[in-house]
C-alpha cells in the first residue's frame, strides 16, 4: 500500500495561516513586508486580531483551535475592513 500521507510539514500550516491572514485580515497590504523574511510583528498582530475576532484565546501562536477555525468553510469577505 502507498505510504500514509505524511503529516503536513508545519510550514504548510504556517503558509495556510499566512494566506488566511492576507485574505481576511489584510496582512501584508498595510505595510510590513511578508514572506520569508517577514517581520514577526504584522503576522503575530494579525493572528491575534483573528483570534480576538473569533473569541479564541489570544495567544499569537498557531494553536490547534486557531488552525481549526482557519480551516472552516467560510465567506470570502474580509473580517476586518470591507470589500469595495
Amino acid at each position, binding site marked *: 500500500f502507498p505510504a500514509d500521507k505524511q503529516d503536513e510539514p508545519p510550514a504548510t500550516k504556517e503558509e495556510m495561516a499566512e494566506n488566511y491572514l492576507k*485574505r*481576511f485580515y489584510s496582512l501584508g497590504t498595510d505595510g510590513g513586508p511578508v514572506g520569508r523574511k517577514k517581520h514577526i510583528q504584522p503576522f503575530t498582530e494579525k493572528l491575534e486580531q483573528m483570534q480576538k*475576532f*473569533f*473569541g479564541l484565546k489570544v495567544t499569537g501562536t498557531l494553536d490547534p483551535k486557531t488552525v481549526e*477555525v482557519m480551516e*472552516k*468553510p*467560510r*465567506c*470570502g*469577505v*474580509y*473580517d476586518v475592513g*470591507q*470589500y*469595495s
Partner: protein
Amino acid sequence: TVAKSSAWQKKDLTYRILNFTPDLPQADVETAIQRAFKVWSDVTPLTFTRIYNEVSDIEISFTAGDHKDNSPFDGSGGILAHAFQPGNGIGGDAHFDEDETWTKTSEIYNLFLVAAHEFGHSLGLSHSTDQGALMYPTYSNTDPKTFQLPQDDINAIQYLYGKSSNPVQPTGPSTPSRCDPNVVFNAVTTMRGELIFFVKRFLWRKHPQASEAELMFVQAFWPSLPTNIDAAYENPITEQILVFKGSKYTALDGFDVVQGYPRNIYSLGFPKTVKRIDAAVHIEQLGKTYFFAAKKYWSYDEDKKQMDKGFPKQISNDFPGIPDKIDAAFYYRGRLYFFIGRSQFEYNINSKRIVQVLRSNSWLGC
C-alpha cells in the same frame, strides 16, 4: 456595517441572476435567492425586485477560481462565496463558488443560508463576531427550514435602513453568553466524559480539562436534531445519548443518530397523559434512569427496559427541598445536579439532602 452614507440610498433595489449552478434545478435556485432577500426585506423597508434584461443593483452569479474581481475562489471548501458592499458597478454584486455543491437541504452547502449571508454584505453589513449571527464569517450547518434572522443581524441592518413597517416589529434569537447569570438550560447530559448543556439552538460543550466551555450549534453536531429540546441523558451501558422533545425521543451514538429513531416516549412506559418530559438523568449508583415531568418522576430500569413498579411518585416527597418543574438534571462524579431556572441544586442521593445551591452556569468556566 459600512457608514450610512455608503449604504444604498434607496429602498427599492433590483437583482438579476446572471447564471445558474447545475447542482440544483433552476426553480430551486430562484426560490433560495428570493427567500434569502426576504430575510432582509422582512425586517426593513427594503424591497427587492428581480429584473432580467438590464444591469441590476445586485448581480448574482456562480463562478469558479479566478473570476477577474481580484478575489479568486479556491476550489471546493474554503471560501464559499463573497459579495461587495453597496455601490456602482461591482458594488452589491454576489458571487458563489461553482466548485462547491449547492443544496436546498441541510447538506453542505445550503444555498439559501449562504445567499442570505452574502446579501447582508450586498446591503452593507460586515462580518459579526456574534457566533450565532447570520453574518458570522464561517458556515454553520443549521436547519434552513427553521431559519430565523438573529437579533444581532436585525440590529445591524435596521441601523442602516430603519425598521420594517410591520406593526409587529420582528425580533430574532440571541446568542447565549457564557457568563449570563440568568441562563436557563433546556437539558444537560454527560457525553463520554464531557458535559453538554443545551440552550435553545445551541449547546455548551465542556471538557473536564478545558477551563472554558465551547459554544456550538446543536445542528452542527446533529443536523436532524430539533432545537429547544426538553431533556437528555447518557445511557452508560450503550454510551448513547437520548434526547427528548415533546412526545418523541432520539438516540445519538456520538455524532450519529441511531437508526430507527425518533420513537414515542410511550414505548418507554409513559402514560398518554404525559405530553413531554422536563428532565432525564441516569444514576449509575442506583442503576436507574429517572424521568421528571411536572411534579412527578418515574424510575426506568435500563436492563429490563421498563418502568419500575410504584411510579410515578411525587418529586417533593423523594427529593426534599427540590422545587417542582425541573428544567434539567445530570449525574456526575457521584452527585446529582438539578437545574431549575437560573439555580442549580447539588443533591446527595444517599443523605437525600441538598449539598449546595449554585448558579446554573457554574460549569461553563465563568
